[in-house]
């Protein structure tokens, strides 16, 4: 089975990277002039590569042999019984490094090799994209430097160790709020000075053109595979699809194949933190305002003066005050629906999926599970047991055990009980 189709949709950006046009649209490129030549070079190289069957064949082969892609589409029977309709899980948690992110980094690193560059840089929040980048760099023999907020290097020490073991340099970023957005700032500062030999492996479908479209194209295999798998096995398209949205790479990777299927309802679930009526959340589309962050016009959590506000999510991978511009566009035109899911609801879904299906999801993914269960119940009530909901199970939860231990009070040897905890 071919990993991805490469077919365009009715929702593409124009050649300047605008989703919905430059006047009232989303995306574009708000970047220092010093980086424009490199972004233009990258855009041309990416167009050239995806039009080259040899490149795409190599990408497909690496994904298959090295990363375990295509991932399976799994019918979650006990979960289905619980909600009253068919629930399908696209098992990106089974990919090498445990999440969908390996698709993006292998695509971008393969392109880096094709462009003749020898070094890659990346930003990371929780460390997942950093680990994936370090993995791809090791695979291709590229130098790798990962920027990570110093707050995150402390709370994600295990992933720092993984990156070190994989041979990457990890730079703790102390500036600003010392989290993901500041890691992006620092990676951009590195890139301005190193752009002649360095590629920036951007971790999500955000940032300046061409990143939102290019990252989408390297992750769209999620949806292309899932759509074909669903049709082949069940003979129908799903009634609804769902994914979590931080920057939004797994979501746009799932959504793209279904955008032109007007009967398929599309749901993105944003990190609602303590609740969108509190200041502690990262529900950018739900509660942000139109603005410019990291090179794109999109929804931004910002104050009255346009200063970026601190975001919060229990899931470090969703803790970002912006969102990919194509999601902003899909929300604005009503093609996709974005809803917030609180920390507590996500953690409940994490425990529920673990016990119902024997799958411990990443906390990011648990937001999608929580939101999609609600959608599935609504669909079951409306259409009965034949209704189908397809969820991107974007990553596995091993990395989140520290948070889970703290949240649920797990693993205390003095409190080992016959009943499950949490």
């Amino acid at each position, binding site marked *: 089975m071919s990993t991805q189709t490469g077919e365009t949709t009715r929702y593409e950006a124009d050649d*300047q990277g605008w989703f919905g046009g*430059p006047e009232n649209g989303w995306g*574009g*490129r*708000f*970047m*220092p*002039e*010093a*980086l*424009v*030549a*490199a972004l233009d070079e990258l855009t041309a190289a990416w167009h050239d590569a995806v039009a080259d069957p040899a490149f795409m064949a190599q990408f497909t082969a690496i994904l298959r042999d090295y990363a375990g892609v295509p991932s399976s589409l799994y019918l979650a029977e006990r979960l289905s019984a619980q909600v009253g309709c068919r629930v399908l899980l696209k098992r990106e948690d089974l990919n090498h490094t445990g999440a969908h992110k390996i698709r993006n980094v292998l695509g971008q690193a393969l392109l880096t090799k094709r462009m003749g560059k020898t070094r890659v840089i990346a930003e990371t929040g929780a460390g997942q994209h950093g680990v994936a980048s370090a993995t791809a760099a090791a695979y291709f023999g590229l130098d790798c430097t990962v920027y990570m907020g110093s707050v995150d290097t402390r709370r994600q020490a295990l992933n720092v160790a993984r990156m070190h073991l994989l041979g990457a340099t990890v730079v703790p970023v102390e*500036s*600003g709020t010392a989290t993901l*957005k*500041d890691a992006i*700032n620092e990676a*951009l*500062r590195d890139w*301005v*000075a190193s*752009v*002649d030999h360095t590629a920036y492996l951007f971790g999500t479908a955000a940032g300046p053109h061409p990143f939102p479209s290019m990252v989408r194209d390297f992750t769209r295999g999620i949806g292309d595979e899932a759509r074909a798998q669903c049709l082949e096995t069940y003979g129908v398209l799903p009634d609804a699809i769902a994914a979590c949205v931080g920057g939004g790479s797994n979501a746009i990777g799932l959504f793209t194949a279904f955008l032109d299927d007007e009967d398929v309802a599309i749901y993105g679930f944003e990190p609602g933190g303590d609740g969108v009526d509190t200041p502690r959340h990262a529900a950018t589309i739900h509660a942000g*305002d139109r*603005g*410019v*962050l*990291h*090179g794109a016009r999109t929804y*931004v959590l*910002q104050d*009255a*003066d*346009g*200063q*970026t506000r601190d975001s919060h999510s229990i899931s470090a991978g969703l803790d970002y005050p912006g969102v990919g511009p194509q999601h902003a566009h899909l929300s604005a035109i009503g093609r996709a629906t974005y809803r917030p899911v609180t920390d507590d609801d996500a953690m409940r879904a994490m425990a529920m999926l673990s016990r119902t299906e024997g799958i411990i999801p990443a906390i990011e993914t648990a937001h999608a599970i929580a939101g999609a269960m609600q959608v599935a119940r609504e669909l079951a009530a409306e259409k009965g047991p034949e209704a189908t909901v397809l969820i991107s199970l974007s990553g596995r939860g091993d990395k989140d055990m520290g948070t889970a231990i703290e949240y649920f009070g797990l693993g205390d040897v003095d409190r080992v009980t016959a009943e499950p905890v949490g």
Partner: protein
Amino acid sequence: MNATVTTGFEKARADGRAALVGYLPAGFPDVAGGIDALRAMVDAGCDVIEVGLPYSDPVMDGPTIQAAAQQALERGVRTADVLRTVEAVAATGTPTVVMTYWNPVERYGVPRFAADLASAGGAGLITPDLTPDSAPEWIAAADAHDLDKIFLVAPSSTDERIAMTTAACRGFVYATAVMGVTGARSTTSELAAPLVARTRALSQNGLVDLPVGVGLGVGNGAQAAEIASYADGVIVGSAFVRALLDHPDDRTAGLRALRALTEDLARGVRGG
């Protein structure tokens, strides 16, 4: 009508020298202290003043300007304080521009920002993360309010982009001397002179002779003299910020250091 930066460059050109362009973020060390500092720079020889608008995500700035901007934001500086600072500095008669990342302007409202900047006596904007091809709204607002539009060119810019950028500028064009972020460096860049030559060659199709200012990495009079030998303007930021950062508890000493640095640079732009 406000002073455009052209008056600052013309004055220098009439003296047979380069113009000295000095930068500090507004609200650093606080709003009043920032105004005092910028006025000291005017007194000691700056021909054009850049007032920085502190921003939470300054991707083109190195550690020195980041630290000053962060300090200003932590003390609660607002966009209105930036305009207040412009008003106080422009009142000296020295052309005063704002250097700002784009989101705060968009958030304020582009036409409203242009109107309020003009009524504060500001000459225009330098936009480090906004290139002319992404700037139709700003260009329209600037033209409506007779403001200077200062865009950047870089060593990596193609000839086509330099021609496009210089065609969109009014006041001067900001040539970044290095591939990198702001911050004083010990040696001047060998990329700067060829970039200035290329920029001049490509911008001569315009009606006016657009001045070329060189910034990034300039920190002392000797470097200023070297750049003044081939450019119309020498732009200094981080070194001024450093002079104040080095005297956190003694404003008088900070102002003295600022004045001494300005005088050194002013000698530099006069050929050392």
